[in-house]
């Protein structure tokens, strides 16, 4: 029983990490039709920013930890907004070029990070409590999983509240359905594009700092390795669906943990799940047919 609880909670924690990356990917694709292969770079940059801050402030204090989360999120937001403004904005409706530019940016930033921080892992320090465990239904759960789950839940609630209660949120929800019609109502939808990129970058940057504590280190390839699973989650959930991304994140994280523990084939099971969903529901769990601009 305790093993099941441990696997379930750690799977939820992993799913939370996937969601922090996938939420931005899904929103960006839903509104703009952009498959952003540079999204992992926002995560890595946020993680390195958090790492540098905690290193300078003395990494084992709670204020430093909280400050690193805030800085990681802010750096992710700024990097994402700049990417949209400087690179993506010129390439809307040019999907091949978008892929080339975002893949290129991803490769270039990994090289840049290696140039600055080296290719070896940089080990992070954190408040002692994060490295300890808490007893839950007989299982000893690493505390950082609770932080991850809580952060992902807050991000989900924050994005949902933003989408539901703000004008930008209204524009984004409408734009996901029919971008051209939003423009035909006199709305400059490009501003919403920047906002969505910034939201995605915020979640990714925050996820980067939390991922560095989950794995215990930051490396230039941190974002890239998580991005693969985040894309799988986004496709399973349905491109453009935030709720779909949340459900798929949990499903993939938990399934991966159980499959890894019992049979050592977590990644294979995730790919089989992806194949099964695509065969049965090609648009994903909650994906909808999109009206093209």
């Amino acid at each position, binding site marked *: 029983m305790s093993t099941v609880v441990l696997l379930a909670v750690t799977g939820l924690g992993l799913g939370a990490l996937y969601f922090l990356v996938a939420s931005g990917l899904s929103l960006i694709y839903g509104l703009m039709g952009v498959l952003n292969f540079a999204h992992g770079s926002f995560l890595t940059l946020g993680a390195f920013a958090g790492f540098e801050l905690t290193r300078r402030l003395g990494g084992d204090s709670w204020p430093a930890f909280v400050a690193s989360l805030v800085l990681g999120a802010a750096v992710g937001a700024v990097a994402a907004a700049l990417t949209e403004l400087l690179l993506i904005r010129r390439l809307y409706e040019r999907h091949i070029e978008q892929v080339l530019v975002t893949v290129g940016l991803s490769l270039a930033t990994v090289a840049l990070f290696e140039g600055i921080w080296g290719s070896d892992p940089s080990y992070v320090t954190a408040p002692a409590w994060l490295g300890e465990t808490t007893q839950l239904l007989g299982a000893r759960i690493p505390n950082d999983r609770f932080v991850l789950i809580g952060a992902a839940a807050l991000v989900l609630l924050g994005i949902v509240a933003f989408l539901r209660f703000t004008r930008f949120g209204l524009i984004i*929800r409408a734009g*996901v359905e029919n971008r051209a019609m939003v423009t035909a109502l*006199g709305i400059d939808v490009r501003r919403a594009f920047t906002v969505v990129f910034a939201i995605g970058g915020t979640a990714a940057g925050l996820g980067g700092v939390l991922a560095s504590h989950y794995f215990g280190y930051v490396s230039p390839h941190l974002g890239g390795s998580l991005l693969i699973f985040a894309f799988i989650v986004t496709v399973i959930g349905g491109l453009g669906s935030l709720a779909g991304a949340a459900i798929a994140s949990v499903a993939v994280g938990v399934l991966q943990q159980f499959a890894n523990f019992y049979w050592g084939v977590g990644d294979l099971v995730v790919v089989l799940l992806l194949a099964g969903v695509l065969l049965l529901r090609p648009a994903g769990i909650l994906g909808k047919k999109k009206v093209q601009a």
Partner: protein
Amino acid sequence: MTAPVLVVDGLSARIAGQQVVEEVSFEVAATGVTALLGRNGVGKTSTIRALLGLIERAGRVELAGERIDQLPTHRIVQRGVGYVPEDREVFAGLTVAENLRLAERGADATGRDLVAELFPELVQRAGQSAGSLSGGQQQMVSIARALVNRNVVLLIDEPTKGLAPLIVQDVAAALARAAATVPILLVEQNLQVVRQLADTVVVLESGRVVHRGPAAGLLDDDALTTRLLGVHTERETEDGR
């Protein structure tokens, strides 16, 4: 005589590289309804979409004396162009109230009372998802989105398409009411509605203007109507289509 609100001069448009509107020129009067007519596929909807910059276009378009053909769509609309698209295009996942709130353009949103008066049903269904409305109710939302703002001109594309006869009359009555305050460029296949609303007609054929003049001049001339539009006006009136 009042200057026209919209002057279209040599407007051409392409979709996926194919010419769909070719050197079209016409004017929309500063008052009343100008109907843009023609058989299916002659480029009426494409003309409206080209005026809004929703498709690739070339040519000169003036709104109230100022050129708008170089502007992006949202800037054109912000200058006071209300748009009711063919097939309604309501945001199905948003509520009725959210659809209308999205359309409101700040200080221009002076038409809330008019919308409530014309479409009381929408007030009752404000919290309902637009996707769950009937076709007629969705058309009301689509028209209401244009009427909620103070506009210089309305571009209305097939507002009665696919609606039941009773709803067609409601929609026509709402447009007649709107036309009293704002000029309308109307694309419409239902000649009874055209007869009811339009003062002037412009007829397209193969992407070109082939006739323009008073609405009565066309609709009262059965031979001309048949030749230009491929329909018989008396039959239109008899079966209510």
